[in-house]
Structures are given as C-alpha cells and as structure tokens.
C-alpha cells in the first residue's frame, strides 16, 4: 500500500463475505444470509464476488447465542493455531474434542483467511443485533483502516438523514477476536434494539439498506473511483462498566430509567446510572462526560458489562484509490 502522492492505493476488494448467525439468536443476519444463500441476486455486483455465509449453524438451529463458547471471541491466535499436535494451553473437553465454536473458527479461518495472510478475504461484513437502543452502528477495529473509514463515510452519507454511527474498538484490553477479523477489512454491523430470537421488520430492512450501500461502495471502488480525503466521526471505546453486584456476584441494580435507551447521549458525572431493586439511585462517578453505548445488552450480563463508555473523535481518512 503506497502512501506517497495524494491517494493511498488499496488492493481491489474482489472477495467479500457477509456473515450471519455468528450469534444464532440475532435474527436479522440469520434471515438475510439465508435469503441470499437461496437467491443472491440482490447482493451481486460487477467485479465483486460476495459470499453469504452462516457462521454458527448449530447455534442458529438452537436459536441460542452459542453452543459451547462465543464464536465472536473465538478467533484468537491460540485457537486458530491449536491442533492436537500443539496442545499448548488450550484446554479441550474430555475426548480431546475442541469446543464447537473453536472448530468453527478454524474452519472459517481456512475458508475466509488465513487471518493476517495475503490469501484472506478482502472484506467481511458480520451482521449482529443488539437489545440496546443503538440504531444502526458500524464497528471498526482499526483507526488506520482507510478503506473501511471511506466505506463508512460513504454509507453514512448515503443513508442520511437516517443515522448510522461508527464505534471504534481499538482498546488493547477490551478489543476481542471477532469472526470478521479473518478478513483484511473487517466490518461489524450492529442494529438494535431487537430482542434475541425476534425478527423486527424495521431492523431487518435497515440492515438490508446499509449492506446495499456498502456493496455499492465496493463496486465503485473496484471500478476505479477515487474517494477524496474525508473526516469521519467515530465513538472510541474507553471503558466497560459492570452492574453493581453483591458478594455472591448477583446483580443488585438495573440500568436506571434515565440511562436506559440513551445510547450515544452524553452521560455526565452525577447523572443517574443504576437503580437498585429497592429503588435507590446510583450515579455516574466518572471524571468527565462520556458517551455510553451497548446499554443493557442481554448477552453482556455474563460478560460483566452493563454498558461501555466512549468518547467522540474525528478521524481523518486518507484519499483512497484501487491499486
């Protein structure tokens, strides 16, 4: 990738995948990918091979988030490297069988990776839903991925005045090994609020429209269009806040009604944050204003997370053009 001259040159994005069912109970992605596996006309573009793929079929079958372990945390270097001959410190259940999702991660890495290699897919869109009131959110894993930044800028402009925000998770401790991370340009698409196991028409259609614009961008890029430098507003993950718990680890308070559904709105020191079951208010004690998101996501109770805090940043995306 050359960065001399006015544009960064990026390789043509000829191999693209759309992952659904990474969490088997997040229904928009499951439904869209199943539709496109049957009939892919809607996702065809010139010069782009787009493959729809159900990443966790057993979890989809059970309509559960996962079977043994969270697939969207399973793409660690250790898991992807693990074989019977390199036992390392990965513990396998009795019978020398890896957890189902670790096996899936290795399979997905073979098909769409290997992660970090030149053979990996160019772009992977990973479709998710959340019980949080996040609206349409694009998740970015690197602030230096100018291709992704330009795509996200394109999508935001295309759906305006409807909103699509960008969440950047580059935090060294809080970032995690996602299924999409096998690709050179991983894009998370998170749309909410939607309960697990439920398909809401408005959420489904919103996700469908975003993917349409994303594929339009890739087609334009592959045809040689230059995308001039631009500024993209992102929300950078700062911290994770857990529920107040008792000595046995049981939750003793709920997200406060004033914070519930207020994803992306400023949370100031002193604002109500939690309400205990007996009615008391617990306030945010941080040093400054933050922008919370993933507020009251069902799957995060077990991950000790009531919400994440973010700060707003303007990232500059270099001009890009295909090589």
């Amino acid at each position, binding site marked *: 990738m050359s960065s001399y001259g006015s544009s960064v040159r990026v390789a043509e994005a000829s191999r693209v995948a759309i992952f659904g069912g990474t969490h088997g109970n997040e229904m928009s992605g499951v439904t869209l990918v199943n539709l496109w596996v049957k009939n892919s006309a809607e996702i065809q573009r010139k010069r782009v091979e787009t493959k729809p793929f159900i990443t966790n079929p057993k979890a989809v079958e059970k309509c559960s988030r996962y079977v043994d372990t969270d697939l969207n945390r399973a793409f660690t270097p250790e898991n992807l490297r693990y074989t019977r001959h390199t036992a390392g410190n990965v513990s396998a259940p009795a019978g020398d069988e890896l957890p189902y999702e670790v096996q899936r991660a290795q399979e997905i890495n073979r098909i769409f990776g290997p992660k970090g290699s030149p053979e990996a897919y160019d772009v992977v869109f990973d479709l998710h839903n959340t019980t949080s009131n996040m609206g349409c959110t694009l998740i970015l894993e690197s602030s230096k991925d100018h291709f992704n930044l330009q795509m996200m800028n394109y999508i935001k402009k295309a759906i305006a005045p409807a909103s699509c925000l960008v969440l950047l998770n580059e935090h060294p401790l809080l970032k995690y090994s996602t299924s999409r991370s096998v690709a050179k340009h991983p894009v998370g698409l998170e749309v909410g609020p939607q*309960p*697990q196991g439920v398909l809401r028409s408005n959420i489904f259609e919103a996700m469908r429209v975003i993917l349409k614009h994303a594929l339009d961008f890739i087609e334009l890029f592959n045809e040689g269009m230059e995308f001039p430098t631009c500024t993209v507003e992102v929300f950078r993950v700062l911290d994770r806040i857990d529920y107040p718990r008792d000595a046995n680890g049981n*939750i003793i308070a709920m997200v406060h009604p004033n914070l519930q559904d207020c994803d992306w709105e400023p949370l100031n020191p002193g604002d109500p944050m939690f309400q205990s*079951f007996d009615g008391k208010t617990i306030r945010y004690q941080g040093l400054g204003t933050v922008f919370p998101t993933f507020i009251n996501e069902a799957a995060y109770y077990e991950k000790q997370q009531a919400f994440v805090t973010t700060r707003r940043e303007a990232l500059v995306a270099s001009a890009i053009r295909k090589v």
Partner: protein
Amino acid sequence: MEHVSFLPLSRFAVCGGTHGNEMSGVYMVREMQRQKADRTGSVSVTSVLSNPPAVDACRRYMETDLNRCFTDALLSGPTTDDTPYELRRGRELNAQLGPKGSREAVDLLCDIHNTTANMAVCLIFYSFDWIALHIYKYIQSKMTSAPVRALCLNEPPSEAYSLESVGKHGIAIEVGPQPTGVVRADIFNMVKEAVDLTIEWLQKFNSGSTFEGGEVEAYTPVGSVDYPRDPTTGEITAAIHPQLQDNDFKVLRPGDPVFQLFSGETVKHEGDDLYPLFVNECAYYEKKVAFKLTKKITVTLPSVGVKKD
C-alpha cells in the same frame, strides 16, 4: 345490585422465573426473598422461584414449557425417570402452593411474566373470577405509569394449564416489551407497582372494605395467526408488518397490513374487527403464533367483600 362475599384472602404467593429468561419476575422474587418479605398486615406472602435451573441457564425452559404443565391430567400423571423436569417441578409447585382445586391452595397466586410484545401491563386469568377482575379494576384505576388491560382465558379449571390456576384465585401479570435475558428498570417498576397494589387490595378486602361493582373492559381469545411459511421447508417468509409491530390492543380491521414478505409484498388481515396481542412474542415462533386475536368485551362486576359472620 348483586354482592358476592368471599372468605378472607390471607395467603398470597408471588412466583417468578416460571420462564427462566423473563427477568422481572426473577429479580422481583429475589428481592422479596432478600427483604424476607413474608407478611404484610393480614396477608402472608410467599415468593417462589418457579424454575431454578432455567433461571440459572437463562432459558425459557429446560425440557418443556413449565407454564403448560398444570392441567389436572398433567398434574396427576405418574412420575417416572423419564418424566421431563418441568412436569416434575410442576407437581412440586402444585404440592407447595396447591393442590389445585383444594382448600389448602393459596388464596391468590400471581405469576410474573414478560413478553417481547408491546403489551404494557396485561393481567391474565381464567374465566370470570370476580376477585381477579376486581384486582384488575383496582390496579387499572391506580396505575398511571402504563396502560393496564385484562385477558380472560376460556378454559374450564381442569383444562387450565398455567401456574396461576393452582391458587384458589390466580393472575398472571404479563409486562412488556422486554427482551429475554434483560431486566429493564421501567418494566420492573411496573411489575412492583402491580404487586404492591395487589397486596394493598387484599389488605383492604380482608379488613372489610366493599369494592363497588361496575363495568370493566377485557379481552377474550378468539384465535391465533401463524407466520407465512415456505410450504416445503416450513421456514418463515415474512416479518410482522411495521404497521402492526408494537400495536398490541389496537383494533385490526379487514384490509389492514399484518405481514411484510421478505420479497416486499404485504399480507392483509381478513375477517372481523379484532384486537391483536402477543404481537411478535419471541417464544411463540416455535408455537407457530405470530400474534393472537381477541375480541373486546364488557364485563359487569358485582360488588365484593369479605364474608362477615
């Protein structure tokens, strides 16, 4: 005007976690047990976590839906090694809070549920139970935080299948919308208010108050509608239409849209003016119900009071 008298209602049970991922009831029961709430004036209060393993796993059920295990036939069947967990647990709960239909049963059993449907507070009970209807009337008159409605089921006692039928009087308190696995403070506060008002009514009743009769609106089931499905695979081919989504209790007229096929076409309601409930309830996908249909009725309540001798 008619007046009906009842013996004092002194034993009240609150159940939560009958479905292990409906979190208001789980946390309500945990909080009541933490506060060791067991008596409020004339009313003794028992709180029970109905399905502990399902709560631990945060699942609706382990083997079969606990809230369908309470018909007379299922309660009295033989217990063997093959009996599913929830059938066995149902029989335990029947022994603890019932037996259903006997004098030893608790006077009132409230079972707390959540739904992903936009039903606000909906009290569900069997046929025309004057006590349940008066409690509904009372809660509806006092609660300002949300609409309160009633769904009267048609089954005779022997066929009544849900947990609240174990009590002499029973009410399922169904509150939504709330996703499974999530506890929302606004929804929890509605549940708490409904339970507190129920206890308040019981105390007033026991202390001799007469509750005036009158008319109340309620809904009774007429049928249910499944999702459009692919005839070969059985897979769902549509979502609830945006104009129906979140519009529980809003009248459906012939020609109103109910489904939007993934290919874009609209499916419309045919038949009478009816009221949809449980619109897009996640647990009902497997029961082949996209929404239930009800008709609105007016019930004339007698006045009620405790028997004075």
